[in-house]
């Protein structure tokens, strides 16, 4: 409305939004890791640095795109994070709460920027105030511990504030200090240093490294590395190996002889430290060699409260960049974080893939036409035999390449379920804190892949299920302890592939659902009559929680069970062509299982005919197709029921339901397509079975969204369109009035 932004700008903006969203998602993941680490009491300093970097990048992005609210929030967060990583503020759950809040606010800001949400201005202001208060509450660092070690004051003088903090923290944690002298080749120092870091990492933390300047020939450089570790010097020597590696322990001074003053405030760098590289001044046996710092492009200069270092002298040109570069990769990275993406991936709008998929669908139609043509040529022309063979061969090649292309595009659409699970982990944390219940989320199979569109649609139902599990399943701590359960509840989120389906389980170890109590409520709510209730199997009783009308907050609390909007969960999953199942044991827990197709894009269908019209039934929902034996049809309470192998199958005559006119000549016999969704079955009576086909299913337009019973439609070739039946909706529609009476016998282990 308000004037045009150019297409180019829009594109850049989309790119910004998706890149920012990715960063925010990553931020959420990192925070969860921090949360976990904090609970275990073992925090990796590098994590806070990662978060700091992400926020910093976000700030940069926000600045570029004039997203002022985001920039402001990032700025304040940066301050808090900086305090955290420098140890000025203690990391606890309260700070973490603020950080999690920030992540969700980022999400809302991005939604607002993308035009799909309102600007959360007030909430941002509130958080900014809270964050501001935090950075006021700085704690003093430990004083003087460093001085207990035999470290050279010249070295201490050039430590950055961050390094100094890490040194202090490590000493306070009782880690030993080690000095490593390692000789690197200048040509490969970057990769060798990374290798060394990787070897050292399992044992402790590298606090700093400096070139010694000693004995360096023209192609090598010796670094002196200060490392903190709990391991013994022997262990370090055996695990951090290399031809030019020497490891010594930095000894603790005798008590009382500590260096006065310590390093609790950054000492001004001493002049000798800035001498040009020369023979090191050795100050006694085990003392660290004072070395010149390459301050040329090091990250230290960009740390927010930078220790004011006078510009260092120029060193050997070849040395400065490589060391500087190596240092830039170290934790305290600053402004030089690049906005360029480094990954080898391309972000693609899912709609573009949809269009490609459509084209593939069209090609499939062309393929069918060619196959038909080849067939006709073969039957017709004896004289064109060779041509017809050629044509058939071409067609097979075409078919093969088309299949490859189809699976290629499908593969591109696949994303790991982890995309939805990450968000859930945040939700779990939030809900469990809101309810004061300790809950652990254990995720398996996050790498299971599923169609991107399905992942998007899964977040909400899964969140609902998990909320239910914590809200109504998991008992409060005291109750758990009194029944001998571990005090912290567990919610397992498991995903795995099973044939052409993906199964997702949400399982809690809470109090489970009591069938008696469920039945009481169902009867009181008029969902079932008392008489019906007495005939339900335990499994059928549990399924009641998915019935609309069963579910109000009040009922759920009455029951101390679940039911908040589970019918919505069921409906949403059904829209994706999936089903939800539930099992529960009183006192042990509840498990809900979602079964979904891997992709929505291409489905295998059974084509059937009603009158002269073609309809498609997704094969995923077809149990079998049999000839209709009219003599086996009985009417039970105004409903037609067919006896199939001794069991009752409700049937629905689709021509009648859809009002499709019959052909003039009555067919000798009709067929029954037995559709099954979850544990419910329905026989769909059709005039003719035509065959199987892979189709690209397309949604009906919005103007037809009120029409029930169809999942979409597909083009079959020669411009004909066939409607695809929505088996779940049809079963719902036909069976709803007597819902619970026709549950599938197989699920009950036979009901003969």
């Amino acid at each position, binding site marked *: 409305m308000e004037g045009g932004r150019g297409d180019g700008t829009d594109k850049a903006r989309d790119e910004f939004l998706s890149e920012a969203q990715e960063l925010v998602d990553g931020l959420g993941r990192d925070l969860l890791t921090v949360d976990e680490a904090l609970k275990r009491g073992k925090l990796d300093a590098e994590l806070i640095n990662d978060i700091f970097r992400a926020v910093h990048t976000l700030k940069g992005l926000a600045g570029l795109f004039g997203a002022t609210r985001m920039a402001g929030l990032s700025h304040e967060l940066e301050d808090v994070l900086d305090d955290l990583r420098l140890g000025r503020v203690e990391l606890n759950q309260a700070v973490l709460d603020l950080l999690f809040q920030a992540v969700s606010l980022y999400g809302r800001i991005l939604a607002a920027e993308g035009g799909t949400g309102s600007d959360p201005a007030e909430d941002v202001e509130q958080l900014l105030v809270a964050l501001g208060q935090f950075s006021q509450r700085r704690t003093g660092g430990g004083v003087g511990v460093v001085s207990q070690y035999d470290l050279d004051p010249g070295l201490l003088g050039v430590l950055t504030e961050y390094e100094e903090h890490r040194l202090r923290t490590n000493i306070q944690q009782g880690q030993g200090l080690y000095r490593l002298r390692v000789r690197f080749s200048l040509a490969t120092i970057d990769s060798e240093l990374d290798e060394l870091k990787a070897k050292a990492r399992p044992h402790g933390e590298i606090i700093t490294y400096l070139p010694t300047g000693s004995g360096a020939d023209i192609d090598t450089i010796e670094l002196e590395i200060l490392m903190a570790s709990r391991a013994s010097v022997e262990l370090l020597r055996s695990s951090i190996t290399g031809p030019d590696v020497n490891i010594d322990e930095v000894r603790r001074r005798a008590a009382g002889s500590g260096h006065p003053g310590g390093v609790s405030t950054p000492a001004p760098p001493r002049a000798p430290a800035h001498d040009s590289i020369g023979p090191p001044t050795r100050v006694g046996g085990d003392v660290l060699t004072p070395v010149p710092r390459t301050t040329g492009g090091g990250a230290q200069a960009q740390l927010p409260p930078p220790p004011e270092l006078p510009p260092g002298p120029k060193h050997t040109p070849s040395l400065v960049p490589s060391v500087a570069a190596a240092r830039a990769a170290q934790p305290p990275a600053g402004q030089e974080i690049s906005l360029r993406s480094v990954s080898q991936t391309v972000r693609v709008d899912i709609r573009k893939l949809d269009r490609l998929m459509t084209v593939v669908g069209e090609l499939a139609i062309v393929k069918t036409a060619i196959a038909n043509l080849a067939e006709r040529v073969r039957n017709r022309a004896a004289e064109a035999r060779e041509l017809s063979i050629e044509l058939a061969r071409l067609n097979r090649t075409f078919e093969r390449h088309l299949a490859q292309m189809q699976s290629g595009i499908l593969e591109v659409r696949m994303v790991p379920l982890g995309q939805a699970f990450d968000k859930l982990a945040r939700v779990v944390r939030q809900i469990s804190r809101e309810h004061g219940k300790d809950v652990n989320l254990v995720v398996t199979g996050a790498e299971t892949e599923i169609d991107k569109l399905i992942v998007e649609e899964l977040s909400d139902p899964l969140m609902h299920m998990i909320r239910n599990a914590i809200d109504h399943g998991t008992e409060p701590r005291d109750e758990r302890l009194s029944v001998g359960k571990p005090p912290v509840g567990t919610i397992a989120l498991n995903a795995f592939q099973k044939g052409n389906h993906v199964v997702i389980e949400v399982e809690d170890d809470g109090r489970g659902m009591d069938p008696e109590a469920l039945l009481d409520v169902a009867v009181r709510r008029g969902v079932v009559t008392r008489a019906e209730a007495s005939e339900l199997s335990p499994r059928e009783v549990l399924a009641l929680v998915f019935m609309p009308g069963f579910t109000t907050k009040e009922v759920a609390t009455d029951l101390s069970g679940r039911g908040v909007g589970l019918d919505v969960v069921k409906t949403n999953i059904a829209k994706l062509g999936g089903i939800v199942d539930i099992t529960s044991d009183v006192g042990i827990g509840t498990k809900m299982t979602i079964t979904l197709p891997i992709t929505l894009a291409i489905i295998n269908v059974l084509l059937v005919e009603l009158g002269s019209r073609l309809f498609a039934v997704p094969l995923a929902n077809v149990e079998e197709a049999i000839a209709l034996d009219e003599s086996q049809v009985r009417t039970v309470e105004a409903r037609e029921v067919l006896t199939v192998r001794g069991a009752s199958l409700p049937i629905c005559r689709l021509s009648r339901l859809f009002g499709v006119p019959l052909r003039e000549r009555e067919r000798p016999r009709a067929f029954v397509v037995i559709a099954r969704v979850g544990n419910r079955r329905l026989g769909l009576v059709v005039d003719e079975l035509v065959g199987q086909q892979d189709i690209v299913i397309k949604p*009906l337009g919005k103007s037809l969204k009120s029409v029930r019973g169809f999942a979409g*439609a597909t083009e079959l070739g020669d*411009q*004909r369109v066939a409607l695809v039946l929505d088996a779940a909706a049809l079963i719902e529609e036909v069976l709803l009035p007597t819902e619970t009476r026709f549950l599938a016998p197989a699920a009950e282990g036979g009901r003969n």
Partner: protein
Amino acid sequence: MAALIRARGEKRAVRRAGEAGKRIEYLAFVLAGETYAVQIAHVAEILRVPPITEVPRAPAHVLGVISVRGKLVTVVDLRRRFRLAESPMDRRSRVLLADVGRGEQIGLLVDEVQQVWRLAFEEIEQSNVLGGEQPAHIAGIGRPAESGGAILILLELRPILESA
């Protein structure tokens, strides 16, 4: 009600264009002997009538769905929608592929496509000249001066879908 507000929006747009001295292009077509017109900016394409697949249980004015280059399009029979006498399709029948907002295109079945008229503001009368409350889908009456007395019923597309 919402439809009325939007219809007014269209009228405002027409007025603005008129004040600027611009003309608006309308595509005229025939339905049961009357001439109707829609802004050509909303018409993406004019199609010969393809095979239409009926959708059981759809609203009565929906003829069915067609596939246009791989996209499903719902086809509305404007005669039925406006409760005009029905007649079979013939070789002059066409489907207008129209953008109706909401990111959806629909097909409008018409008896015959006539021509494009470029209407100036003075050539458009408000729908209330027909008296009282007019259906929301009637945006006004066009009287192109050069036509020598032709009358166009100018249509607003969105209300056509909204209340049937």
